[in-house]
């Protein structure tokens, strides 16, 4: 405010009072005018942010000058000197300048100042917004912390009850709940049972049916759902009327593991089972469920589901492990019992076998002896029957023992070289009598490429062939039987799980026995090879047999790395039994056996050949013995002719006698031996060992009934040749 004080007036005689008041007011105005800028300066200095310093200076100057004019006015009242007038004028001019400048300046400044105010307002709003967001983030972070803590608590244990209890406790604490409850589905799945509560120590066994609409609503979504406090699942506490019930929220907890769930007459199987968690806010707090709290509840529910499934899996695996341990123990006991049983059976078999064999042998031996004596036809018939039955019984015992040994795996093949062709012929010779009686012609076809000398278990192979051919004869009433033996390569008639691979020194022998007899129902074929099973009708059963034959044959065939099977078109259409076995091919010719170390050639024919050596000279006796032992014979030695006559028996196949010593006595022995052994086939062959082999010696030997002459000292090859020839032809006159 500015007023141009036009106080220069002629001096009138003024009113004293009015003068006084003007005087005072001017004074005060001046004071105010001087103090205002001081205050401004003071406060601006204090603020240090005010940008308009220059304006303030201007303003201050303006005010000061205005004050100055008013002050100068004080002097105008009394005197009006020229100096005062000058000063006054100067002051007024300055004041005018400054005030105009200030007015001009203010035009620019005032809008700025006003906008500052609006900016301040804007910033305040922004700050308030940020504050709000901060609050939100903080609550979220807190929620996350709570969830982590809850999860940690829940997951720190694998015990189902602890998990659930901890969940409720922590939730109750975090969210400051009044009540928190968990409803689990019952075994049948038709009801929800109140399993856990927070506040109540012993929850009542309280169930609600699962098909309530509120429950379906909660189960239908994975979110937490606000439900009415009056719904049956929320009515957990005795309701007192005066309280306003707090809001209730329910959420589903998926049970990720299907425990023992008996599906009796449940028409549809719900694939997922849920538990229900109900959370109740404090009754009279008027608190609302906030979004972040609901989110917390959902997250917790998920974690609980996972923790529960882990706990369930652990339970399951523990249960399975316990079961396995029990089963293990039971199996162990069973195994030990089985072993004991097997041992007992083996002991029993061994003992019984021995016990049974002894009387058996007695019976067979004595019956055979009895057969040799004079008997009437009826007696002979009886004895023959006794013999037949007892040999059958002996066979049965052998079969049983063999089978048990086969099953134990303790049976091993006894390999040796033998003549395959001869084997077949022998089998046929054995069977022929019975076949002739039954008028069944048997034919044998041996393939041209069938090796003659093979390596294998001769006895058992014969047993197999005998069994098969015997069966063919037994169960055929008419028709013919054909036995075919051939070398087989891979043949598509073999069962699919058996591939024949002929290797270098081995081959597979295939034997086919075809008969036109009773035949077998194709359905019965698998049963044939089982023990003790018989598929024949009663009529044919009378022909005997224990049913073990095929089982044993199959075991032997398997031991020989082969296969056996039977083909039949049906009952009454005959059947063909076929088996393959693996045999080794013998490289050597008939004379020598398996190739051996050169220093020890053996001849299979000499093995166990019992010979007697008679020589007075100890040294040559020993040498001859050594020679024969080397060839594999069983050698007995005597040093005198009397001893020779005493010792010689029909067991000795050859007797070597030294006839070097001059005299005819040695040749006498030959005669005496001839006398002793009347039957030609029982007499041992007699060979003379002599120092010279001129014609007279040979003639003399012949005359005394000697079968051969050998020149001393005898070489190994000589001896070998002589023995072979002797045994082959039963007579020899030795070449040097």
């Amino acid at each position, binding site marked *: 405010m500015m007023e141009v004080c036009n106080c220069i007036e002629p001096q009138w005689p003024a009113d004293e009072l009015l003068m006084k008041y003007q005087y005072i007011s001017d004074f005060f105005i001046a004071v105010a005018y001087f103090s205002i800028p001081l205050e401004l300066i003071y406060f601006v200095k204090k603020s240090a942010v005010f940008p308009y310093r220059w304006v303030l200076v201007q303003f201050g100057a303006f005010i000061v000058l205005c004050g100055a004019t008013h002050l100068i006015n004080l002097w105008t009242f009394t005197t009006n000197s020229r100096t005062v007038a000058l000063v006054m004028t100067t002051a007024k001019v300055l004041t005018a300048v400054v005030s105009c400048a200030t007015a001009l300046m203010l035009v620019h400044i005032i809008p700025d100042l006003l906008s500052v105010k609006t900016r301040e307002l804007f910033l305040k709003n922004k700050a308030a917004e940020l504050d709000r967001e901060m609050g939100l983030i903080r609550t979220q972070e807190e929620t996350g912390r709570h969830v982590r803590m809850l999860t940690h608590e829940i997951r720190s244990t694998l015990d189902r009850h602890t998990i659930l209890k901890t969940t409720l406790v922590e939730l109750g604490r975090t969210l400051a709940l009044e009540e928190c409850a968990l409803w689990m589905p019952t075994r049948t799945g038709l009801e929800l049972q109140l399993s856990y509560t927070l506040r109540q120590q012993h929850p009542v066994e309280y169930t609600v049916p699962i098909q309530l609409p509120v429950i379906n609503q909660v189960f239908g979504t994975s979110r937490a759902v606000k439900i009415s406090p009056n719904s049956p699942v929320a009515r957990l506490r005795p309701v007192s009327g005066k309280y306003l019930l707090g809001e209730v929220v329910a959420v589903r907890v998926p049970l990720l593991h299907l425990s023992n769930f008996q599906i009796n007459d449940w028409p549809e199987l719900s694939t997922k089972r849920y538990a229900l968690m109900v959370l109740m806010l404090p009754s009279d707090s008027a608190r609302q469920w906030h979004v972040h709290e609901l989110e917390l509840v959902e997250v917790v529910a998920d974690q609980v589901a996972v923790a529960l499934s882990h706990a369930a899996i652990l339970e399951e695996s523990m249960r399975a492990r316990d079961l396995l341990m029990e089963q293990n123990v039971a199996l162990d006991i069973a195994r030990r019992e089985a072993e004991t049983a097997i041992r007992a059976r083996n002991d029993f078999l061994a003992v019984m076998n021995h016990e049974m064999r002894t009387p058996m042998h007695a019976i067979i031996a004595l019956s055979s002896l009895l057969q040799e004596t004079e008997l009437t036809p009826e007696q002979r018939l009886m004895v023959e029957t006794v013999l037949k039955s007892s040999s059958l019984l002996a066979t049965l015992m052998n079969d049983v023992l063999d089978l048990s040994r086969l099953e134990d795996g303790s049976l091993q093949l*006894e*390999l*040796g070289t033998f003549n395959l062709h001869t084997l077949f012929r022998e089998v046929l010779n054995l069977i022929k009598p019975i076949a002739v009686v039954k008028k069944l012609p048997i034919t044998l076809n041996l393939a041209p490429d069938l090796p003659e000398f093979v*390596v294998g278990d001769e006895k058992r192979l014969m047993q197999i062939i005998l069994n098969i051919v015997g069966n063919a004869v037994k169960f055929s009433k008419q028709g013919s039987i054909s036995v075919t033996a051939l070398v087989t390569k891979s043949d598509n008639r073999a069962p699919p799980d058996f591939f024949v691979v002929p290797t270098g020194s081995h081959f597979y022998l295939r034997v086919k026995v075809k008969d036109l007899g009773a035949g077998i129902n194709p359905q019965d074929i698998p049963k044939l090879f089982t023990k003790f099973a018989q598929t024949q009708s009663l009529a044919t059963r009378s022909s005997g047999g224990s049913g073990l034959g095929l089982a044993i044959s199959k075991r032997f065939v398997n031991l020989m790395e082969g296969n056996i099977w039977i083909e039949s078109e049906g009952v009454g259409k005959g059947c063909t039994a076929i088996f393959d076995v693996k045999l*080794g091919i013998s490289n050597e010719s008939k004379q020598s056996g*398996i190739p*051996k*170390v050169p*220093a*020890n050639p*053996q001849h299979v024919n*000499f*093995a*166990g050949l019992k010979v007697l050596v008679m020589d*007075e*000279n*100890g*040294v*040559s006796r*020993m*040498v*001859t013995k*050594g*020679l024969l*032992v*080397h060839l*594999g*014979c*069983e*050698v007995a030695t005597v040093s005198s002719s009397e001893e020779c006559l005493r010792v010689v028996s029909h067991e000795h196949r050859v007797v070597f006698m030294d006839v*070097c*010593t*001059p005299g005819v006595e040695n040749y006498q022995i030959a005669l005496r031996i001839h006398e002793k052994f009347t039957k030609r086939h029982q007499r041992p062959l007699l060979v003379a060992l002599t*120092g010279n082999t001129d014609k007279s010696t040979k003639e003399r030997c012949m005359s005394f009934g000697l079968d051969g002459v050998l020149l*001393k*000292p005898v*070489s*190994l090859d000589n001896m070998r040749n002589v023995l072979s020839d002797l045994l082959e032809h039963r007579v020899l006159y030795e070449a040097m």
Partner: protein
Amino acid sequence: GYFSETQVKPSPKETKRQLCLSLSLSISVSSLHSLSLYPMDAHVAQLQMQYRNYILSLYQQGFLDDQFTELKSLQDDGTPDFVAEVLSLFFDDCVKLVGNMARALDQTGTVDFSQVGANVHQLKGSSSSVGAKRVKGLCINFKELCEAKNYEGCVRCLQQVDIEYKTLKAKLQDMFNLEKQIVQAGGIVPQVDIN
């Protein structure tokens, strides 16, 4: 293996003994083999050469003939001491027979040439069985002398026989020692082919 070797043993006791002998021999041989080092191989070869030469010399000098080869061929893993046993029996026989003959020739009065002849016949048989060539040759001469009833000749021949069998005994002992040395050195006794 697939092939099993069936050997016939004369008696269980014999079997056992032979088995033990062969087993011990094979174990000793194999263990010695495992101990052999390169310097030892040279030593073994040297011994084997020595042995071979010795045997050849025995044959060339007429101490042994083919029958001895036959005898050696009868010896195998089952009867490792066969030759040694036969030879010891032979030398015992020699001692006995020579003693008999000495006694028979020492008799005052008439000398029983037939008895001497019988002994000579025995010795001839024995020596021909083992392949002692020189001894056998001497025995043939001796026999003729006996038939001729040549007393001096017989006495002289007997002395020769005595010397001869003792020499042979010493020589064969050397041969056995050589064999033992070879085996101890870890080598195998070589089969010497005379022809």
